[in-house]
């Protein structure tokens, strides 16, 4: 018993130390750098200033930010549309199959996502797996390529991020009380209406959680548009990397990174508030139902 407590404490301490050293400290460092003065030789010079943030206020950066948000939002939508039926299917599968199906969702995580992106290239490229298959089936007369298109980019996003969407959705759908659906049917609702009025609102926490888990990484994932989409636009990740390495303008790169971090933090807070409200509504509903 005592040993268990000790083990737990060591684990928590380890994780906390890890986060402190590899997540909190670098981010705090970036925050400090974003307020320092630019120096062409030593990257930064002492002297606090808001100059870097001032330089971020320009239409080019706004366009880069907007394009990143637009792509991440679209990727989230595609993942949601693909992930919902997927999670629904798993949740409705027999109890014996469910753990295996979930395992299959998780297994790709064991491979680095960059390597999986290269695997997508092998599938989509001209004379690749897909191209050869279509040709063998006689559906196309010559090699076709989907690579370096928006379609390829969204296939990449969906493939990489789908598990983040499926797992929270599965948790929400599995919890769903089927009696409520039967009740809706009894009261005359068609299946579409039952889905819209019962299933969807009750699985909303899963939808929100999954969307957050997809949207946030998608915002920073610049290598997928670069490798699969042809790198025709500049995203936040490219911008930060260019400022840090190429232009050696560390305050500007750090300021852009800080803006991104703050934007993500705000979204997480909003999501927490939304889930808290949803839970409260649920409790309220139960209370009103319980009242005579």
């Amino acid at each position, binding site marked *: 018993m005592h040993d268990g407590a000790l083990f737990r404490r060591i684990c928590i301490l380890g994780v906390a130390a890890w986060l402190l050293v590899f997540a909190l400290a670098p981010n705090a460092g970036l925050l400090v750098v974003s307020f320092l003065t630019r120096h062409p*030789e030593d*990257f930064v010079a002492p002297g606090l200033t808001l100059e870097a943030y001032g330089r971020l206020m320009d239409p*080019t950066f706004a*366009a*880069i930010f907007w*394009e990143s948000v637009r792509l991440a939002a679209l990727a989230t939508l595609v993942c949601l549309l693909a992930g919902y039926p997927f999670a629904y299917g798993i949740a409705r599968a027999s109890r014996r199959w469910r753990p295996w199906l979930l395992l299959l969702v998780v297994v790709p995580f064991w491979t680095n996502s960059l390597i999986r992106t290269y695997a997508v290239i092998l599938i989509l*490229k*001209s*004379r*690749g797996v897909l191209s050869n298959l279509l040709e063998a089936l006689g559906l196309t007369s010559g*090699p076709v*390529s989907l*690579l*370096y298109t928006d379609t390829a980019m969204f296939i990449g996003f969906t493939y990489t991020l789908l598990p983040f969407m499926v797992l929270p959705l599965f948790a929400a759908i599995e919890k769903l009380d089927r009696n409520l659906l039967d009740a809706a049917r009894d009261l005359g609702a068609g299946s579409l209406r039952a889905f819209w009025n019962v299933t969807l609102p009750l699985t909303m926490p899963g939808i929100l959680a999954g969307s957050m888990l997809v949207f946030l990484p998608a915002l920073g994932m610049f290598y997928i548009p*670069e*490798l699969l989409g*042809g*790198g*025709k*636009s*500049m995203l936040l990740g*490219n*911008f930060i990397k*260019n400022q*840090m*390495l*190429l*232009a*050696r*303008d560390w305050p500007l790169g750090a300021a852009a990174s800080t803006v991104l971090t703050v934007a993500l933090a705000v979204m997480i807070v909003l999501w927490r508030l939304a889930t808290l409200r949803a839970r409260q509504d649920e409790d309220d509903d139960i209370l009103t139902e319980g009242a005579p």
Partner: protein
Amino acid sequence: MTKRIAALLLLAALVAVPSAWAEAGKTLTIYNWTDYMPQSVLDEFTAETGIKVIYSTYDSNEAMFTKLKLMGGKGYDIVVPSTYFLSLMREQGLLAEIDPKGLTNFANLDPEVLNKPFDPENRYSIPYMWGSTGLMVNTAQVAPGTVTSWADLKRPELAGRILMSSDLRDGLGVALKALGHSMNTRDEAEIKAAYEWLLELKPAVRMFTSDGAKQVFAGEEAVVGLIFNGDASQIREEMPELEYVYPREGAMLWMDNLCIPAGAQNKEGAMLFIDFLLRPEIAARIAEEFRYTTPNKAAQALLPEELRNDPIVSPRPEDLVNSEFQTGVGDALPVYEKYWEMLKVAGD
């Protein structure tokens, strides 16, 4: 008399070299470009000197520079910056002086590549390999002879089938050359004109990539675009219909140089290694594998005949008319960066 002196010198060398090995540290830390040195060369060096090699790689001068700078010039015994980074690193005191007299094989180098403005008298750098960035043309898809210049990229039949570099100096460099300017200009008006030239080309570009050119042309994802001469030569072994063109306005040249960081732990070992690489048979083996141009004259003579006569690997003077070496642009770099961002942000 001269014979006796030569014999004495030889004897001195025989004694001096092993004692130098004994003095040199037991490990040598090398930081080089990816895909740029055969493992067999490193193994041979270790077998001969007993110095263990720790080898790591980078994919951009910027990454190498930042790392070295942050570590105060320590951590590596050999780095291989390109010409346009060399002057910057030298000015910032990141490099140790090299005495060419300490290199027995220095005389093998082609005088043409020595004593250049980025490092007068080669006090900080020894040329490793050089090459060009030119045009790859798939002659099975594009009528041969129709693409001979950078400006030809604007031909309507190439729309949607062009590979452009994702490196901003290369990308804007193409446009600057096409417009007849220097690719190293610091004049904002010229850089802006180059941006406008690229903006017009952008809808015709299939992808921006720097390290994927070989795969792109092998898969025929693009039929024309930028490529390094070494990559071009390697891929032509499989697909002879791919032709390497030195554009009429001039190719973009670069050279990578062996340097010793100021804080190197094993400078003697580094000198031994540089001298080892300057041996004709070693330099030739490296050039044969990666197909870039060796600055080592004695090595050139050892290359197989088909490489010696191949203008891709061994450019003739007429191939390099109007070509220039990429150099640093100093304060103008943020200007390049600004217009590159504007290009990337612009919608098709």
